[in-house]
């Protein structure tokens, strides 16, 4: 399989793009990377994802697929026979549970981080910290049920829910650094704290979590941008 058959439009700082990278690594799929600047948005991105114009996009045999979780499922389904581990569980109920939690995480986790970074005062940040703390509590419980005593949500190897949640570890640490308040702590989530270390060290993930200092650096201009959007009532 030639490299150019699989192309990823991504961005080094994007947790969503990271999901696709991890999935491709699990399946040992070589691909061509296109680093999107988003400012301005490239013609390739606008053509490949006209609805949302956002990363990541996977282009396979010239056909684009958008939305990170759908791309991960596509990767799992397309390269299901090459002796690599499965990304989604095989049992339909377990698959549904994984999808449920991934959707829940997408709804609550990163949006709360963005809000914490965007709002101005400690008082305004408080409700978002509360959301994050609730997510940690629920996902800690979900980990117990999904992993069934094994190292990952997916069992023996990194799976769908590991990817869905773990892709935000870089941004989580930046959010925690910015105001010196941690949410993923041993006291509240002992299993998840250990899981996070295992996840970051896993060969499928190693090197893909963006550098903390680099992410912290771009969080400043992003904060300015998001605050400007919030000021005119737009989604950030």
């Amino acid at each position: 399989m030639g490299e150019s058959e699989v192309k990823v439009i991504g961005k080094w700082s994007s947790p969503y793009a990271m999901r696709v990278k991890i999935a491709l690594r699990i399946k040992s799929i070589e691909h061509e990377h296109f680093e999107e600047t988003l400012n301005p948005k490239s013609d390739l991105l606008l053509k490949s994802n006209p609805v949302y114009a956002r990363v990541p996009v996977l282009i396979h045999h010239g056909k684009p697929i958008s939305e990170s979780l759908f791309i991960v499922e596509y990767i799992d389904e397309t390269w299901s026979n090459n002796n690599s581990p499965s990304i989604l569980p095989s049992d339909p109920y377990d698959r549904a549970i994984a999808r449920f939690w991934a959707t829940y995480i997408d709804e609550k986790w990163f949006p709360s981080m963005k809000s914490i970074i965007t709002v101005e005062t400690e008082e305004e940040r408080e409700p978002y910290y509360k959301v994050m703390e609730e997510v940690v509590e629920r996902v800690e419980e979900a980990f117990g049920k999904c992993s069934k005593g094994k190292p990952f949500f997916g069992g023996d190897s990194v799976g769908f829910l590991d990817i869905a949640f773990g892709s935000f570890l870089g941004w989580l640490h930046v959010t925690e650094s910015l105001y010196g308040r941690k949410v993923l702590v041993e006291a509240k989530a002992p299993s998840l704290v250990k899981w996070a270390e295992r996840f970051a060290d896993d060969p499928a993930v190693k090197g893909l979590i963006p550098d903390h200092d680099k992410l912290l650096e771009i969080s400043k201009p992003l904060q300015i941008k998001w605050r400007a959007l919030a000021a005119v009532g737009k989604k950030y």
Partner: protein
Amino acid sequence: MAEDCGEVQFFGVGGSPYARRVQIALKLKGVKYTYFEEDLRNKSELLLKYNPIYKKVPVLVHNGKPLAESLVILEYIDENWNKNYAILPQHPYDKAMARFWAKFIDEKCIPTVVKAAWTIQNEEREKAIQEATEALQFIENELKRYNHKFFGGDTIGLVDIAASFIAYWLPLLEEAADLTLLTVDKFPNLHKWSQEFTNHPVVKDNLPPRNGLLGFYKARYAALK
């Protein structure tokens, strides 16, 4: 359909488009279930037990194992009872597209339409209508591009089921809330698809009564104005 379904319980609300999605899917698959109509102002113990995160309908419980979120439930129904009637396409690319459009309907189409209906202030309403029109235009273009009877091709699929809101609830909102949105000149393909969809033998018998829903929406609009 001699397949043993196990014990299936389905918690819904008659007027909910999300609950009706699950009902349509169960019917298409011929799955036998026990239905529980919820009163959202007085949620049952069972609902709170089975969906502690969102406390919403629809909820599907299969052999004691609960699931929430309509699109998650639809995929489960398709994968678990997989010997007949495919709701999702076979090919991974087509599956990814179906999931994309179903999610787009939930993230963009439904919220923008609902906002347009319930926004009273003129300028804001115009803006809301514009947003809803843009979202629906994407869906219209998808139908136009493939030129099939349904989003799923010859048969109803995931996107059709997700888009049931557009076929049935949207026109009722238009009528109740004095809203002009899905015009036949701007959306000829959606119009044609809506007719096919709402007249489909399984769908037809599994939509809420028109008058009840219309009355409910009219009362809400009157209260806002």
